[in-house]
């Protein structure tokens, strides 16, 4: 059979390219352009070279914020991925109960970020919030507006509540895709539950887990609205994450050049970590 080679199909990519150019490429170029200038207003921009980058790299406030951000993302992944897998494994696979479980799981995902922040802000209050009041009644000295540990715990709990369902749903769809024959073979071999999980379910979940880890990393690394509404970055600056620091700089102080340099460094970190995750996981796949 003759294989027809026709490269004209590449023209079909053109609309997407134009769309991406306007939604991603040109804005990114603009940020690069701003990062080398000091901008006071329209028509009042002065070229400063790499000065902003130098300042950002030496800024302790930003380094602290970066450290907190990594800690937060690590905690999010360490809690949500195993928990999500666990929930997916426990869910019923068919019938009405499965539908009910799916809907219950999907509810937190449907709530807008700022509403999630508000819900938890009230929920955690010692005077009118069920969670805060309950903890205080049990004898815990819980106050997320004054205590750093409590603030962190609340922000983490909120994120776990909001986003673990996403991991669970992804894993659930991955589990559903495993053919019944695999389980029958395992049953013949009298495989234990752990062995089934380790050698059948987990390997088959790999591709959805790649997506789950990447999505959860990127989302948690860019988190802004929820902690901003819940704690406002406090107490002190203990829950001020990178995007909040960036927003304060860009919009609060209108320090566009500095914020642009910061954004680029932020972008490079996200790019590197995402690429590392992706390469590590796809590479593991090839080795087998």
């Amino acid at each position, binding site marked *: 059979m003759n294989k027809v080679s026709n490269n004209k199909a590449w023209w079909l990519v053109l609309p997407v390219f134009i769309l991406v150019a306007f939604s991603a490429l040109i804005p990114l170029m*603009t940020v690069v*352009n701003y990062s*080398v200038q000091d901008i006071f207003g329209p028509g009042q921009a002065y070229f400063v*070279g790499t000065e902003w*980058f130098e300042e950002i*790299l030496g800024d302790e406030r930003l380094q602290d914020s970066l450290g907190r951000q990594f800690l937060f993302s690590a905690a999010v992944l360490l809690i949500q991925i195993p928990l999500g897998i666990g929930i997916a494994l426990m869910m019923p696979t068919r019938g009405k109960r499965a539908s009910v479980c799916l809907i219950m799981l999907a509810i937190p995902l449907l709530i807008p970020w700022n509403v999630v922040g508000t819900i938890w802000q009230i929920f955690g209050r010692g005077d009118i919030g069920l969670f805060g009041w309950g903890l205080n009644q049990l004898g815990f000295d819980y106050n997320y507006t004054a205590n750093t540990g409590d603030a962190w715990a609340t922000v983490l709990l909120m994120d776990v509540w909001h986003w673990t369902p996403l991991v669970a749903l992804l894993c659930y769809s991955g589990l559903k895709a495993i053919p019944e024959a695999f389980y029958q073979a395992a049953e013949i071999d009298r495989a234990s539950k752990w062995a089934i999980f380790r050698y059948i379910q987990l390997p088959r979940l790999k591709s959805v887990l790649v997506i789950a880890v990447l999505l959860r990393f990127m989302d948690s690394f860019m988190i802004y609205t929820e902690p901003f509404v819940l704690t406002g970055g406090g107490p002190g600056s203990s829950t001020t994450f990178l995007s909040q620091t960036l927003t304060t700089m860009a919009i609060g102080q209108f320090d566009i050049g500095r914020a642009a340099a910061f954004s680029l460094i932020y972008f*490079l970190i996200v*790019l590197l970590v995402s690429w590392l995750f992706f390469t590590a996981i796809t590479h593991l796949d*090839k080795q087998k």
Partner: protein
Amino acid sequence: MIAWMNWTLPVAIFFSVIAAILLVMTVYEVVSPCTERKGFLPIATTRGDRLFIGLLTSAYLNLTFLGLTELSLWIALAVSVAWVAILLRWG
């Protein structure tokens, strides 16, 4: 339309170089399609992978020079160019 965006020459040069690199790589790919191979990097890579790794590491190299040393960024640029070339050939 361009004036209010305050485009500067160094940024224009930077992106022109990136665009030129992508163009050359595309033409090169059409002329002689590459296959995945294993070099000194721990993973098998295609030409595009190596370019991406090279550009990303160069960005970090330049930031390291800027943040930790007093050396001129031209040195960082020279090292980066050499590094990308090495990576593309033997990586």
